[in-house]
């Protein structure tokens, strides 16, 4: 994989400089650390703040989803590395509108420790924080150890739903309840065909044969459930749907949203080829598909591969999922 960059050490800071220069109507840098992006137009006073954070290299995740009806602020780490507790504390401060802040992020050890410590740091600012952790990757641990699962693209649904609930004016506990419900409603699985390169590491995150794929691989190249010959699109889509539905069975009449997401290099043409099978499978289950998301919502730079995320909806979740939102990467009218 070839990358267009300057000094690898500057990759993230230069990316943020360009992002904020391109979209001043959406994003501004906040805090002293230079690694916090907040809404250009802060949420209204008294609105519950939604903050996230994590490593860079996943655009639109995390930073991109700062915007109306979505996140209030985001702490940005180096590529695939957690931001520091200081940076997270800055993000929490930027997100707070006096009604407290939800820390909504993925299940990674470093991120958890830092967000916990950041919470202790902002206690001195009298900011009340709650936590909702995404652990939606079914390939990363069996149902019995669901709490150990990695957080992946399900985050996008949680950002959207929590953001809309906060916009609706609920208090911290209520928005936290809804955010947790959204997180619990998501299941994801990924399949990787080729790796990406972390700028400062300078070499691919993993090695794989020219004719191979790996089912269940994590977004940072974490080992998956099997590696073998690259299969046909319909077979890949079928197995991924099997894995999701085995973990979260659907009943006829259920309403769901599904995300068919590119890890980066895989083009939309191929996502739509997969979507035929995904939709047919959901129809066969008797489920109604609401607002399918096909595109690049949570990536790993130039990684080749896809992930599917199934989000089971109830009336409340559907209302907030379909509510308006606006950022440089996604807008719902």
């Amino acid at each position, binding site marked *: 994989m070839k990358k267009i960059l300057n000094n690898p050490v500057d990759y993230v800071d230069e990316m943020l400089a360009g992002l904020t220069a391109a979209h001043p109507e959406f994003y501004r840098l906040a805090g002293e650390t230079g690694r916090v992006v907040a809404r250009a137009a802060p949420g209204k006073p008294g609105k519950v703040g939604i903050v996230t954070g994590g490593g860079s290299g996943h655009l639109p995740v995390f930073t991109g989803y700062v915007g109306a009806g979505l996140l209030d602020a985001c702490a940005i780490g180096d590529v*695939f590395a*957690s931001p*520091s507790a200081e940076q997270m504390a800055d993000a929490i401060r930027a997100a707070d509108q006096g009604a407290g802040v939800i820390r909504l992020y993925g299940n990674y050890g470093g991120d958890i*420790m830092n967000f916990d410590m950041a919470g202790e740091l902002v206690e001195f600012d009298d900011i009340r924080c709650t936590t909702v952790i995404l652990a939606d990757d079914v390939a990363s641990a069996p149902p019995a150890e669901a709490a150990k699962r990695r957080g992946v693209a399900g985050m996008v649904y949680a950002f959207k739903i929590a953001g809309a609930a906060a916009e609706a004016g609920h208090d911290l506990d209520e928005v936290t309840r809804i955010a947790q419900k959204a997180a619990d409603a998501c299941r994801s699985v990924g399949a990787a065909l080729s790796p990406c390169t972390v700028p400062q590491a300078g070499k691919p995150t993993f090695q794989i044969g020219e004719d191979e794929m790996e089912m269940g691989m*994590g977004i*940072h190249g974490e080992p998956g459930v099997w590696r073998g010959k690259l299969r046909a699109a319909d077979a890949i889509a079928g197995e991924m749907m099997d894995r999701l539905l085995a973990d979260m069975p659907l009943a006829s009449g259920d309403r769901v949203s599904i995300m068919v997401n590119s890890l980066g290099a895989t083009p939309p043409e191929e996502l739509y080829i997969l979507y035929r099978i995904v939709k047919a499978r959901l129809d066969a289950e008797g489920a109604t598909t609401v607002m399918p998301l096909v595109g690049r919502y949570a990536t790993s730079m130039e990684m080749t591969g896809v992930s599917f995320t199934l989000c089971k909806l109830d009336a409340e979740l559907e209302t907030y999922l379909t509510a308006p939102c606006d950022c440089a990467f996604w807008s719902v009218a």
Partner: protein
Amino acid sequence: MSLTVVELRSAIARLSEAMEREFDALNAADGALGDGDLGVTLKRGMRAISELSPGLPEDLGQALLACAQAFTKTSGSSYGTLMATGLMSMAKVLRGRTEVEASEVSTLIAGARDAMQARGKADLGGKTVLDSLDAMARATAGLTDSKAVAEAAATGAARAQAEMKGRIATIGRARIFGEKTIGMDDPGMLAMTAIAAAIAGT
């Protein structure tokens, strides 16, 4: 026999030198089981602390708090956050004091271990830096001579690392490598062995 900011400063000097030296080895060890940044975390952290060193206050609590913050500012990786957590727990105990007895060190290490365990929610025996600290706390218990304490801590850390080598990693990024981790040193334990050795000056 008591320790002051003077001893702290000389320990910092030895430690930062050691972390520069171990930079590649620690990155490599972490690269095999994780994201390969452990050397970066410790080198950056110790550099920041060295810069603070001359200006560190007499108050050991304040001094250690400054060291802890150097880690939270320079790294978001687990080990940096855990180091900050451990140092902060020691800082709380020593707040307002300019001296600490060698005989108190065991309790301070145990306190750090517990604070880090609370932070990382990992069990003892999980093949992490916690096991190093646990061994160091036990090895130093009851000792009163500062040199003896330092050496006991170093040998304790080394022993724990050797004992755990054959286990399966259960925590952090290493967890996903499962069986493969048997026979491999945990990077964080490796780092703590180097840290303890540097402090002891052995």
